[in-house]
């Protein structure tokens, strides 16, 4: 009986009258529901936080010179004279209809919608995140797998120590160091340090520095920047972020695989005469996806949500800086939108990670 039902499940044939929701669909629906609630709560928290911040948009922009009447006039124009609860509900009412509203920086006849402010920034942020992820994720997985395969070898130790060191420095420090490398291309030869070195060493350092492409230290792109120039300009922030996130993912990949290597079925694979590479790739890795994907999702979320420092250092116009700016000027609709975009990104990436975890685990994908 049981076996027959299982067989049909495995064949993917319909299971009869008793509706069994696909586990993936169930998770997606459930998590999306929770996600919406989360977004709602986030919007309340952010709204309250801004309400508690000293000053408001009118005071922030007019600030120094404003007479109380001027402030009141502006407050009235952007609706800041209404009670916060009322403002929140009118905002969320529009939000529910998909209208992000307008920035407080709008004036009569000069509307700046939140959507049009965020869209290019979001594109930039996504661009940088995707570009970094395309390099960092395969690199981290590759290094993690190799480190697991040759665990405790000099290679393993080297990779571990180097990646550990890169995450041990503050992000902005890493960024400045990279910028220093680029500047050194031109200036190294003239420094006292270079003069204090033996000639051959100074020359070879100088040569090495000049092998490094002269990446721009200023990543100020705008909506007219062509694609490849965008890539070129985003190189430095991307490299910085890669250095920052590879360690975490690589270490988790290594740990997850090594953890799997103590499973009996790995012994079985060895007893079946499989090569070590096959054992790691075909027998350990498929079972290690869940923790790896989780940590990858966490880092991808970081690439989108947590890069404000790198954006500042390389003057890259992303959402992080936008949000900090908007907090600074108390531009509530923009802050709210940024926070929601960030929260949604986080929720979606985690959801995707969960889906992949389910999809790579036959126990969850094909329940008995």
């Amino acid at each position, binding site marked *: 009986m049981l076996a027959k039902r299982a067989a049909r499940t495995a064949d993917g044939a319909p299971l009869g009258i008793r509706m069994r929701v696909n586990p993936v669909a169930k998770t997606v629906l459930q998590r999306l529901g929770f996600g919406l609630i989360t977004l709602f709560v986030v919007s309340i928290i952010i709204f309250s936080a801004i309400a508690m911040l*000293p000053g408001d948009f009118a005071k922030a922009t007019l600030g120094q*010179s*404003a007479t109380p009447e001027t402030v009141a006039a502006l407050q009235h124009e952007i609706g800041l004279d209404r009670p916060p609860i009322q403002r929140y509900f009118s905002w969320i009412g529009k939000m529910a209809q998909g209208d992000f509203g307008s920035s407080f920086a709008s004036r009569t006849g000069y509307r700046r919608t939140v959507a049009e402010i965020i869209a290019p920034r979001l594109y930039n942020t996504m661009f940088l995140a995707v570009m970094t992820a395309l390099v960092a994720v395969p690199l981290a997985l590759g290094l993690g797998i190799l480190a697991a395969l040759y665990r405790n070898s000099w290679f393993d130790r080297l990779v571990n120590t180097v990646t550990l060191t890169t995450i041990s420095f503050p992000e902005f420090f890493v960024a400045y160091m990279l910028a220093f490398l680029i*500047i050194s291309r031109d200036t190294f030869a003239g420094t006292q340090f270079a003069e204090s070195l033996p000639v051959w060493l100074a020359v070879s350092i100088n040569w090495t520095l000049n092998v490094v492409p002269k990446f721009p*230290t200023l990543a100020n792109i705008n909506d007219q920047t062509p694609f490849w120039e965008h890539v070129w300009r985003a190189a430095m922030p991307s490299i910085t972020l890669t250095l920052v996130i590879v360690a975490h993912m690589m270490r988790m990949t290594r740990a997850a695989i090594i953890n799997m290597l103590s499973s009996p079925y790995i012994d079985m694979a060895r007893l079946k005469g499989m090569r070590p590479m096959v054992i790691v790739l075909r027998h350990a890795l498929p079972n290690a996806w869940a923790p790896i994907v989780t940590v990858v999702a966490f880092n991808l979320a970081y690439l989108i949500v947590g890069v404000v420092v790198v954006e500042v250092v390389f003057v890259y116009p992303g959402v992080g800086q936008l949000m900090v700016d908007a907090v600074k000027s108390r531009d509530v609709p923009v802050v709210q939108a940024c926070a929601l975009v960030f929260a949604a990104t986080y929720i979606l990436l985690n959801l995707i990670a969960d889906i992949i975890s389910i999809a790579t685990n036959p126990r969850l994908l094909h329940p008995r």
Partner: protein
Amino acid sequence: MSESEYKLRIAQSLVGRGKVSRRDFIHLGVAAGLTVAAADQIFVTTARAQPQQGGFAKLGMAHGATTDSIDPAGYPDTFTQTAFSGAMSNSLTEVDAKGGIQPDLAESFESSNGAKTWVFKLRKGATFHNGKTVTADDVVTSMRYHMGADTKSAAKSLLEPVSDIKADGPETVVFTLHSGNADFPYIVSDYHFVIMPSVEGKADWASGARTGAFVLENFQPGVSAKLKRNPNYFKNGKPYLDEVEFIAITDLAARMAALSTGEVDYIGRADLKTLGMLKRNPKIEIIEITGYGHYTLPMNVTMAPFDNPDVRMAMKWAINRQEIADKIFLGHATVANDDPIAPAIKFYKNPQPQHSFDPEKARHYLKKAGMEKLKVDLSVADAAFAGAVDAAALIRETAAQCGIDVNVVREAEDAYWDNVWLKKPWCASYWSGRATADWMFTQAFAAESSWNESFWKNPRFNELLVKARAETDEAKRADMYGEMQQLTHDDGGSIVLVFNNFVSAKSKKLAHGDVAPNWENDGLKMAERWWTAEA
């Protein structure tokens, strides 16, 4: 002077405007009896010194925010001021490199009725970027944009002395003031008072059509603004550059790196710490202008303990200004004496005595205020001025020797001007300075000014301020301003630490004439005044 020499002179001036080629010039030079090499040398120097047409400049600004707009009611910092006021627009007047006032969009101006009535004649044929001719109505509408009950302009207080503006025909504008002000043309040179087209009786700022040397092509708030040359600009030969791009680089290290790697050709507000190292770069020049700008530590005189003048005096003696000038500004500053009027400004009079670090005197005044010990909070952030936090650390050390415990509160940089300035009892502040004593006092020390950062309301000072403004006798005016400076020095709530130098840096690809002292970035007009130096 021989004919050849004369021709060479003329050619030289033409070279400066880029109208004579190198080959032609050398030809003329040889004819005038020079060697080819000598003629070439003259050509090169002349070409460098004299503006030439064409080129593209990337200018790194120390500010920029996503809420920036081209609305002249705002212009909170050097990004909007330099790009949208200086490059894109004109006011009626402008301050020249020597600090004098010159007509800009106005052709001429004159006063009558004890400096109460001012008549500005407009340039003929000046047009907006959209082709519309500039008329007196546009000027009236533009100025009124900053006036009235419902204006949202930050410069409203500047025009409060104005009782009426009216157009007298298409080319003449008449300003009537409540009381006489001999310095009024300086006021209309302010970067807020740009002239915009009047559309249905309202100033149309949103279209971006202005009169300036450059036309706005692309603006991304908080990121960059790209402007291209206005071919119909009313000033002959100007601007020299074909295109400028203003880039917001708020991070100091990023700004320095961007200049070092040639990403930008100019940066405002260079890092003084590494200036020496930057100087070693053969491609880079430092520009240092002694301006009117000064760093202050305003004490709110309406709040304890600063409501006691003796406490204020104790604080003034508890600070080592020379050390701050040397350590924080690395010598790029002049010690001030609690007087906001820069030595270069007319009617400057150094009040006596010079305030310096003197623990004895500080303790004396503290005792006089009835205190043995004093504990105060000093709210600072580098947003006030680069080095404010460090300066506070130095003050903490010197004040401690005077029995004053200064608790340095590091504020968030982002909302400093909104949350701290004019809010906290004692904080750090910066003034880029004003071109006249009257203007400076009116904005930062007058009782009714909303920028009166120490909330100081000295009746004698305010009485003198009004009197001096309308006084036409220069000597009497000088006396009055002298007394006012002594008052701020003795009683005022603002500790004026040092006058700063505008320190910026540029690549040698850019060249310029004398740099104006009134604002940063060559009086905000660098886009119009500078040119590329490459031959």
